């Protein structure tokens, strides 16, 4: 497939978290649809701008019966189902902004607020972050994110409240279905202001597991978080400075967990009682 040409393109410049991007498309209706999606994703953190120098380039074209995505002018992927294609495009934009954000450090993590302090649960995709965040929010924790912990220079975590991406349980021969829900739709509430981190929890689900937390030092926690930190290679110094602030006053624990329904209730009580 050829590189994306600039003929007959509709263009949209925008900026989020200090990252400047340009999006080109040969289909103005498609471009308008994407604008709405990105505005939903980034909320007040997205700003439509005038043309700028050296933006990161994305393109989405409609070609025949399918959609083609370009990054830096080269074909990145294609797909026939519009909704799936646009969700994938949205996730690529999020990843790009997470990696290049100027004054924030994005860490792959689920985050909720509980009594003024954040509980940060680092983990890669498919590690069960959303499931646990979902249950914590249903039990009254404030929703910050099921994807990224967004930390500022003081180590405070900011809301990144895209809708929770709740996946169906894997079943043999069936595709995973994803449902997108707001915190309010599951009976919870979304955070609106940054807060300090109280707990960092490294955990994963294990059938019949017992809660036996190890307490990690701040250095051990930063080391663990490095593997979940989006800009670690791109902006190492800022990443480490901010991770230090994030962990310096937090209680850091590592343990396997039981089912999210049971564990979420237990963990909030645990935090309240500081029983360890």
């Amino acid at each position: 497939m050829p590189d994306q040409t600039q003929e007959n393109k509709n263009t949209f410049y925008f900026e989020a978290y200090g990252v400047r991007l340009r999006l080109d498309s040969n289909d103005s209706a498609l471009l308008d649809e994407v604008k709405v999606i990105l505005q939903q994703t980034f909320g007040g953190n997205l700003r439509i701008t005038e043309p700028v120098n050296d933006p990161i380039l994305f393109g989405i074209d409609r070609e025949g019966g399918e959609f083609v995505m370009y990054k830096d002018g080269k074909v990145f992927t294609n797909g026939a189902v519009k909704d799936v294609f646009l969700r994938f495009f949205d996730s690529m934009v999020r990843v790009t902004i997470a990696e290049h954000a100027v004054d924030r450090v994005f860490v792959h993590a689920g985050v909720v607020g509980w009594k003024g302090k954040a509980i940060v649960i680092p983990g890669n995709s498919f590690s069960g972050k959303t499931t646990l965040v979902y249950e914590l929010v249903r039990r009254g924790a404030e929703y910050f994110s099921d994807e990224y912990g967004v930390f500022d220079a003081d180590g405070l975590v900011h809301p990144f409240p895209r809708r929770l991406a709740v996946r169906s349980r894997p079943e043999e021969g069936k595709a995973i279905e994803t449902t997108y829900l707001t915190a309010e739709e599951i009976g919870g509430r979304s955070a609106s202001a940054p807060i300090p981190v109280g707990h960092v929890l490294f955990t994963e689900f294990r059938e019949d597991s017992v809660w036996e937390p190890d307490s990690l030092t701040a250095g051990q926690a930063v080391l663990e978080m490095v593997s979940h930190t989006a800009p670690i290679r791109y902006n190492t110094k800022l990443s480490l400075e901010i991770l230090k602030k994030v962990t310096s006053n937090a209680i850091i624990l590592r343990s396997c967990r039981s089912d999210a329904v049971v564990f979420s209730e237990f963990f909030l009580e645990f935090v309240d009682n500081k029983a360890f």
Partner: protein
Amino acid sequence: MNNSQFPSARKTGLVVQDMPDEVLVYDLDSNKAHCLNKSAAFVWKSCDGTKTVPDIVNLFASEAGEKVSEDFVWLAIDQLSENSLLEASIKADFAGRSRRDVIKKIGMVSVISIPIIASLVAPKNALALASCGCAVNGDCTIQTGCPSTVNCNGVGVCAP
């Protein structure tokens, strides 16, 4: 001057972050992060290219108020060298014993933590964090955690 007698901490290509009781070191060449515990960090910071292992033993006593053996310092240097945190590679002088034997011996007599360096390779890019990890075209059709079973772009990302 023989480098093996006067170990020197590497200074270039590293991002160093002091933590309350540890030091985080990120190697920009290998994209590996290292967490040096207090003992390992003390030895690393003492490796200025002018001190011998016995000098560093004495420094432990005078500056940290801790009595340690030469084996203790060699154990740190061995790990620092292995992780490319010294200017030049140094083979530890364990007098024919294995590192495990030395750790055992030190562990039995030392009142302070033995030097430990924990390491981890950083992910290739942010995309790797968001991906299912499928490496081969078609993996998404068999890996149950993938968002799509329709297609895979073959670079570790479940594409639409």
